[in-house]
């Protein structure tokens, strides 16, 4: 093991600025993180959080400013130098190599490993190291087989194993269930309290920040806007520091659901192979009624993607039936058009757009081949496509330089607005949405959720697949939990409990 600094280091940035060409990503940011503290860094997408931590970790060179580690000015020119000072980073996405075991992942991440690995000696040292840790993870299975919470623990163990005592965590809980998140953050919290570790956590979950962090710093548009003890700040204070004076879209009140109504979507006795082909997705019974949002909760990789693919006709079923408005649904363009079924898959730029085609063309994907009366046409009506696009852009406030610019040039929020505009325009009886707000900023999120709620109140049946429990609680009328390819739990929103849903997500029960 590399020589570990005994104490948890403190860190301070002084007047840190970073420009990329003409873009000023960071302006004069000074943040102080005391030794053994748990510090949260808040900010919208694009506020400069990741630029700041990349400067600290030596991936970027700040344009001006200095970094002090333990009170002494440190030259963090390269990731290796940052590592030598005991700074480590845990990323939002796992950096473990899935086909290697935990032990192999740990050993190979060390710089001083010999050409031939003496596994007996290494195992002995790993066991001794694990004995000093407050939590353990099985090290003899390929990390691809570990649950997300265990992977995240192993990422943290890896940093500690490498002797890093200042950890930067980039949204560490976005892939975890609430229980796992609680578990992991609680352990880190205990280590900071003991003085073994200093933590800087990037997060956008206020309840986590309030529960686990001592202090919070907020960035907005590359500028440091404030800091404070979490005990002195409410969630509303932090939110207003993050978004400034921007106003958020307001959500409609819920109209009541006609529980007796014939379901718009009815999936029965469906079985299909999953991505690996080793497991089976089986949906015994799933009904979505008009004017109702049914939320599907679950940790990524438990069959939600496959469910979406089945509904989109991308994955053949072994057995079962899908009915939409009482009629058999086979996910063809004709069926979708006839029953007014619309899709908003996750990562809409890749999955719901032709990225290099223009905004106008992308907005016309439903109407380019038919005329006003729904008759098939042979020649494109350019004027109508433009007019259609203009109306949609106006109605959904899509910011684009022109109708002819490629849709890939738009920001993430605007791509999502454009797709939403296309899918929610016209008659919509069934809307299937997956992770619609992933990676978007507050104002876009608020607006998109308000639109979905509007569609619901207008009588659309909505199936919402999301990895964000807060989103599901905000929007759903019923929440279903998927685990290991099956729907294992169902609860109306009125009696829904995060911890019960979390334990079903984790597959306990």
């Amino acid at each position, binding site marked *: 093991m590399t020589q570990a600094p005994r104490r948890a280091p403190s860190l301070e940035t002084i007047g840190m600025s970073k420009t990329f060409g003409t873009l000023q990503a960071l302006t004069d940011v000074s943040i102080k993180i005391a030794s053994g503290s748990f510090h949260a860094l808040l900010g919208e997408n694009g506020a400069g959080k990741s630029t700041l931590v990349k400067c600290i970790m030596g991936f970027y060179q700040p344009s001006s400013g200095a970094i002090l580690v333990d009170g002494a000015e440190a030259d963090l020119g390269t990731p290796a130098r940052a590592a030598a000072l005991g700074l480590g980073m845990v990323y939002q996405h796992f*950096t473990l190599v*899935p086909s290697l075991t935990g032990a192999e992942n740990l050993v190979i991440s060390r710089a001083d490993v010999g050409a*031939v690995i003496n596994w007996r000696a290494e195992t002995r040292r790993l066991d001794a190291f694990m004995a000093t840790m407050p939590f353990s993870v099985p090290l003899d299975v390929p990390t691809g087989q570990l649950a997300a919470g265990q992977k995240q623990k192993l990422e943290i163990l890896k940093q500690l194993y490498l002797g890093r005592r200042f950890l930067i965590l980039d949204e560490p809980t976005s892939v975890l269930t609430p229980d796992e998140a609680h578990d992991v953050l609680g352990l880190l919290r205990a280590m900071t309290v003991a003085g073994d570790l200093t933590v800087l956590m990037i997060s956008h979950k206020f309840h986590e920040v309030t529960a686990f962090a001592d202090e919070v710093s907020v960035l907005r548009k590359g500028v440091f806007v404030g800091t404070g003890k979490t005990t002195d700040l409410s969630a509303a204070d932090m939110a207003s520091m993050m978004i400034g004076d921007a106003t958020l879209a307001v959500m409609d009140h819920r109209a009541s659901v006609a529980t007796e109504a014939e379901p718009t979507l009815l999936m029965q006795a469906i079985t299909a192979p999953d991505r690996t*082909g080793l497991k089976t997705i089986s949906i015994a019974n799933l009904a979505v009624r008009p004017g109702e949002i049914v939320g599907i909760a679950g940790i990524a990789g438990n069959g939600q993607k496959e469910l979406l693919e089945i509904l989109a006709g991308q994955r053949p079923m072994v057995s079962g039936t899908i009915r939409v408005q009482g009629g058999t649904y086979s996910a063809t363009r004709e069926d979708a058009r006839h029953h007014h079924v619309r899709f908003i898959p996750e990562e809409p730029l890749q999955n719901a757009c032709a990225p290099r085609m223009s905004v106008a063309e992308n907005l016309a994907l439903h109407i380019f081949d038919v005329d006003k009366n729904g008759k098939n046409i042979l020649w494109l009506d350019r004027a109508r496509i433009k007019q259609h696009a203009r109306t949609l852009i106006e109605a959904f406030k899509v910011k684009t330089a022109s109708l002819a610019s490629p849709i890939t040039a738009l920001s993430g929020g605007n791509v999502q607005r454009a797709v939403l505009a296309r899918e929610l325009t016209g008659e919509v009886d069934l809307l299937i949405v997956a992770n619609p707000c992933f990676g978007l900023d507050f104002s876009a999120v608020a607006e998109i959720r308000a639109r979905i709620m509007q569609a619901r109140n207008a009588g659309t049946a909505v199936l919402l697949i999301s990895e964000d429990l807060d989103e599901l609680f905000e929007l759903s009328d019923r929440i279903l939990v998927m685990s290991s390819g099956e729907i294992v739990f169902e609860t109306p929103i009125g009696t829904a409990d995060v911890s019960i849903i979390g334990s079903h997500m984790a597959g306990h029960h």
Partner: protein
Amino acid sequence: MSGSADIGLWGVPLAMIGGAVRVSTPYIFVALGETITERSGRINLGQEGTLVFGAMIGYGVAIITGSPLLGVAAACACGCGFGLFHGWICRFPKVNDIAVGIAMMQLGVGLAVFFGKPFIKPAAPHLPAISLGWWSAVPQIRAALDVNALFILGLGLALFLNWAFRNTKYGLMLRVVGDSSDAARAMGLNPNRVRLYATAIGGGLAGIGGAYLSLYYPGSWNEGISSGQGLMAVALVIFARWNPLGCFFAALLFGGAGALGSALQSVGVTQGYYLFYAAPYVLTLIILTATSSRSHSLVGAPGELSITK
């Protein structure tokens, strides 16, 4: 082969075993080389070209120097050169390794045909065989057990790689790079450099396989010497799930299938035996069809491989 005892239909399995050992060696080397390359996350279809060029250069050098071992060394060096070239082109952004591989295949075969013209007539000294059948009086058994040193080297290499992928720093580094470029970069590894070396080693092994073709079995240089063995070895790697020992046994299976036609001929089947010359190709098709699926991805495939992404 001098005189043969009458052992009837037993001749078929015996000839197939002998054939398997003889025919499989180039498959073993190309497949092991390709395993190293693919484990690093890159696919090199140029192995076919490297194999043919290695056959030509090995033969040529053996004629000129009189030493078949120098021929093997030269073929290995040229193969490394081809691998380095492939790896160097692929390090540029937006270059597709499969397309480059196809171009390299054409280049290798083309260069071999161009430079190989003078070597079609003269006979080169052969690689020596080790006779493992000395204990038997039956000539067919002795013939079947005439084993080339390269075959044994191939077996040793398969065992070594199987161990090295798990127990050496370089083996683990190779697997890290092949499974996740991001993880490799986070670890401070340069994926392009690891892949460059992996492709070079893979090319070098394919070159040795080529030298075996021209210097031992069939044992002469001509333009159609490989008949696609380099490509089939790439398919074989997928069949063997990127496992070196799996590659060895799969190569034996392919070799045995390749020997079926001549084995039938040797016991006096005079009609239709030539259909069995197609056995390796049919086997390739069956295996690729059987192991592919449109609803799930391959288990055990390196995550960075472009065909599995």
